[in-house]
Each structure stands twice: as C-alpha cells, then as structure tokens.
C-alpha cells in the first residue's frame, strides 16, 4: 500500500467566547472602525430580526427566518466583499444583504409576499434570496464563470446552510468550480440544525469543510461566532479567488439560537439546555466584550447604537407597511420580456375578473 494523497482541514479563531484574543488579530482589525462597523451591522441585524419576527407574530408579515446567533457569518462574509462582487444568499443572510445595500424595507416586502422585495435598489447584480435549499450554488458557479470569461477581478460569494451541504447541487457546483478554478467562495453556515435534523444526521463527515476535498478545492473551518475570524478567513478566500487562485469552501461554525422560522417550534425536537449553553458563545456579546475590554466601546455608545438601530428598523417597517400591493395583473408583467399573445388573453381575463 502506498499513499496516494493526504489532506488537512484547519480551524481559525481570533476571539474566544469571552472576547479574549487567542492570537494576534488580523491586519484589517487594526482599524478600530472596521471592527466597530461589524459590531454595528450585527446589532442592526438582530434588531431587524426581532422586529420581523414580531411583524409575523402580529399577522403583518409572512413566515420569516431569523438569523439570531448567526449574524457573524453573513456579515463577516459580506464585509469582506467589494461592491462589484456578487452575493448569492440563502434565506438567512439578511445581515449580509443589508451590509451589501439591500434596503430593510425590501427584505420585509419580500417576506410580506411582494415580488418587488427582490428588485434591490442597491446591489443590482446580487441574487435574491434562494428558498430551494442549495440550488443557488450552481448559480454562483455561473456568475463566477461569467467573471472569469470577461477577465474581471470579481468574486461570487454564496452562502448556504449545513443542511444544504447534503444536496447534490452544492457538490456539483463546487466540483465544477474546482475544474475551472472559478472566482467563487462557498460559505457553509453550519448552525448545527436543518430544521429538526441535527448536523450529525446530515453527514458522517467530521467537518463540513472537508466536503471541499471531493471537489479538489481548499476547505477550511472558521469560528462562525467570531466575526473577525469570518471576515478574515472569507476575506482571504475572496482575495485568493480574485487573484485567479480558485474557489474555497469555508465552513463557519455557529448555532441557530431560535426556531428555524416563525413557522417552526424548535422545542419539539431540541433541548433548552443545549440552546442555553450556546448562548454563551454568541457573536454579538463576544465582540462587545472584546470592544469594551479594549476600551473601544462604551455604554453610551451602546445605547446610542440601539436607539439608532431601532429607528432605522422602525423606518423600514413604516415604509413596508405603507407600500400598497401591486395590481393583480402585475403577475403578468415580468413573466417574459414581452407578453406572448395567449398570455395577453389570460391577463385580460384577470383584469375583467378584478374590475371593480
């Protein structure tokens, strides 16, 4: 027997759960504002999530998927992107979308059941939320291939969950990205659960990062509750991709602190004790400890931030609630570039039906 190949998977963390550095912080973190901006984005997202859940609970919005406890993953990833890069989120990356310039009112509109919520006024090339789990990974490969063909130094960043890593599409996309060394970074938000299915029933693989090995691309693990680590590790992967060195899979280890969505009741299938323990590792408290320990963050600043976030979110909610529905015939408006004749008849019929 001879050895044909060997592989290792690394894990990166900068701050421990108490906010204490475990190693020298990366270069970007030398700018205190860079770190504070990450903190602010996480607090805004948590404020937004809480409000969105309450809109659903009070019947003013549809089902919603909160990112409680996992804010560091999409935010760390999005913060590492350039404006001209393309973000392909799953359905739990509102923090990253907001950072990319998607308006909170748009996100509410989407979950409120209005297609205009995906017509982002900000990042025009970013993909809308992807509900069919993992099916956007091939899109990310396609977007990256477009960049490659045009010789552009742009990167596609695709985020999906631990459950998504069981989908053939995700594997096929990573494998293809490997063949062409595409400028794409796949981020697996390993929040330990896919609705009621725990990570251990999803795969026997010790890490999700090692899924990359099958695709012949680098895979690495990061502490997904350490936003500095996420920003740094995803950032290097992005810059590697931008430099033509190909794709990476980053597994971010975090935890879903709440129900899967507002339609779910996690108490049916998991212990409160497990959840309580995980509260000790969550990303916002961790970074706040670091910032206050290092004298970069005061109680007053915290209060101001909370006030500011609440105001921003309230503004978005007001805008969302004030947006009237589209006319019923809007369902025909963007079906094709030009509405084909047989469809025009159906549209006329609908118009007739809804005529006051």
């Amino acid at each position, binding site marked *: 027997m001879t050895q044909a190949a060997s592989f290792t998977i690394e894990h990166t963390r900068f701050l421990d759960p108490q906010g204490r550095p475990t190693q020298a912080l990366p270069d970007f973190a030398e700018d205190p504002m860079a770190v504070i901006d990450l903190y602010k984005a996480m607090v805004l997202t948590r404020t937004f999530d809480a409000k969105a859940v309450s809109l659903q609970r009070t019947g003013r919005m549809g089902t919603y998927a909160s990112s409680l406890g996992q804010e560091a993953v999409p935010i760390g990833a999005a913060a590492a992107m350039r404006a001209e890069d393309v973000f392909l989120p799953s359905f739990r990356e509102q923090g990253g979308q907001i950072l990319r310039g998607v308006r909170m009112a748009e996100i509410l509109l989407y979950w409120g*059941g209005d297609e205009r919520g995906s017509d982002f006024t900000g990042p025009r090339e970013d993909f809308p939320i992807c509900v*069919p789990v993992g099916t956007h990974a091939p899109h990310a490969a396609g977007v990256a291939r477009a960049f490659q063909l045009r010789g552009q130094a742009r990167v596609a960043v695709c985020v999906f969950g631990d459950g998504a890593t*069981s989908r053939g599409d995700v594997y096929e996309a990573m494998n293809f990205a490997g063949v062409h060394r595409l400028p794409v970074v796949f981020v697996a938000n390993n929040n330990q659960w*896919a*609705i009621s*299915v725990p990570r251990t029933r*999803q795969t026997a693989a010790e890490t999700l990062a090692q899924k990359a090995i099958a695709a012949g691309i680098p895979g690495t693990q990061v502490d997904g509750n350490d936003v500095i680590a996420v920003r740094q590790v995803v950032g290097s992967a992005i810059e590697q991709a931008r430099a033509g060195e190909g794709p990476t899979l980053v597994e971010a280890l975090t935890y879903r602190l709440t129900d899967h969505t507002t339609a779910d009741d996690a108490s049916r299938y998991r212990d409160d004790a497990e959840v309580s323990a995980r509260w000790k590792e969550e990303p916002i408290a961790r970074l706040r400890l670091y910032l206050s320990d290092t004298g970069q963050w005061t109680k007053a600043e915290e209060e101001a931030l909370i006030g500011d976030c609440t105001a921003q979110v309230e503004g978005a909610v007001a805008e969302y609630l004030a947006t009237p529905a589209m006319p019923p015939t809007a369902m025909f408006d963007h*079906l094709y570039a030009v509405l084909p004749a047989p469809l025009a008849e*159906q549209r006329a019929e609908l118009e007739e039906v809804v005529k006051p």
Partner: protein
Amino acid sequence: MSEITLVEAVCMALARAMAEDETVLVLGEDVGIDGGVFRATDGLISRFGADRVMDTPLSESLFAGLAVGLGAQGFRPVVEYQFMGFIYPAIDQIVNHAGRLRNRTRGRLTCPMVIRAPYGGGIHAPEHHSESMEALFAHVPGIRVVIPSSPARAYGLLLAAIRDPDPVVFLEPKRIYRAPKEEVADDGAAMPLDQCFTVREGRDVTLVAWGAMIVETLVAAETLAAEGVEAEVIDVATLKPLDMATILSSVERTGRCAIVHEAPQSGGVGAEIAAGLADRGLVNLLAPVQRVTGYDTVMPLPRLETYYMPTEERILRTVRRVLAYA
C-alpha cells in the same frame, strides 16, 4: 369517532399502514421527532421507532432513489417531500426508474413506493411553497397520481396507495389540511384508486375538480342550486390513470362541463379531461368545455395569490358562460 382534519387523516392512514405491514417505512426531512412540518407524521417515530420513521439528509434526489432500492427489496417506503416546490429533483428517479423498473425487468423488480407532498396555494406561504405541478407527474408512464379532497378520502386513498404494488405520487392539498374536518373511522378500509368520485349529483352541468378546488366547487354548486341549476361535481381523485368513463357518463347526461384546477392552465390535467371530452364526449356536448384554473404565470407571492387561484366567483362566471350556450 371524532372529527379529524385532512392532515390528521394522513397521519392516521400512515400509522394504520405501518401497524398492519411492517414493510411500510416513512422517510423524508423532519418526519421523525418533529413529526413533519405539517405534522403529517406526528407520533409515528415514538410508535414505530427511528428505523421505520427516518429523517433523511437534505437530499431530495436521493430519497426517491432510496425508495426505488427499498421497493425493489420488498419494502413499501412512503417518502415525504416537504413541499411540492422541492420535489423536482425526484423527477429523474420517478421517470427513469420508479415508473419503469417493473416493466424493464418484466416484473422481476418492482417499486411499491409512495411519494407524498403537500401542494397548492391559499395559505400565504413563502415563495416556492404554493405551486400545483401535478401535471408533471400525470404524464409519466408507470406511475399513479392521486389527490384527496377530504379527510375521509385522504385516509382511504393513502391506504390504497400504500398497499398498491406500484409507485404512487400522492399530493395533499395543504389549503384544506386543517379544515374542513370530517368524521373518519380508523377501520383500515381503503378507497378505490383509478376512479373518480361523484361528490354531488346534478343534471345541468358537470363540474370536474380535485384537491382543495373541490371545496370551492361545491360552494359554487350550492350557489347555483339556489338559482335552480343542479351541478354534478366530480372529484377526479386519481389523476393518472384517468377515469374518463365516469366523466363521460356524467357529461352524457348534463351536456355541459367545466373543469376547475389551481395549476397553470396550459398543459394542466384539465387539458386531458377536456381532450377526452373533445374526442369521446363530443356528441353529447351542448356547450364548450371551459377551464377555471391558475394562470400560465408563476404563482405570485402571497399578496396576489388569491387573484391567481380559482375562486367561487371565477367558477360561477365560467359555469354561467357554459350554461348560457343554447
């Protein structure tokens, strides 16, 4: 015997089938301790154990193929897809394997499997959670497509589907998952497959529907009755193979027919029914066969979904047009 919902009837049929036949297995995402996102498998894992009630990884293409392997080995897997919007990766296995295995091996290997999925709109669900794509399955050789329209029919037809030795796609109209309720005896009695059910008799017009649309159609029929028009309402129930005989004999009496379904009109199962009438029912038709359906658009997000779905009002408009022909 108390009144139960359609989703409870599904669960009751699953439990019954599992109790009477140990080769019956349930698998899918969150069917175990969570009991399915709609609770269609509630309590099954504690009663029958994790071997027989299995949470699968998030791999939709896989489960259908897994069921082919289990079926070939003599098990009767019942696979849950969480929503019809996530069933498409299974089509490859259904078309290329499940529907063919018996035929291609001349009966040596078979596929006694059931694929269950909630489908249809009307509950303000998120994107991809409200589609009605039953026609994609109703065209595939070697399988059956069954849709219940009430708790009793959910129980009886699901039992029949599970006991059937061939693959069945069993689609559950989630709009009527929780209401109306109905008394259903847990007596293990299956209902016949491959047969329409005439759920209301009438001499003036035949209304053909299935799933949640039966409810709307019956409401419309009552409105018509108040106006002196007696509509016969047929619940197709098994969409493939299609029992045209019952529909033809009804139209032979009424001379008029309207078809109601949620799916997009073009290429929906309504087309096959109308085609059957244009062929073997033509001599009896006193009026055009018209369809009240979803539009050929993408199912809109919740704010506009009610405009997409056939409503009592849209059904009445069409039936009145069909009745108006001299």
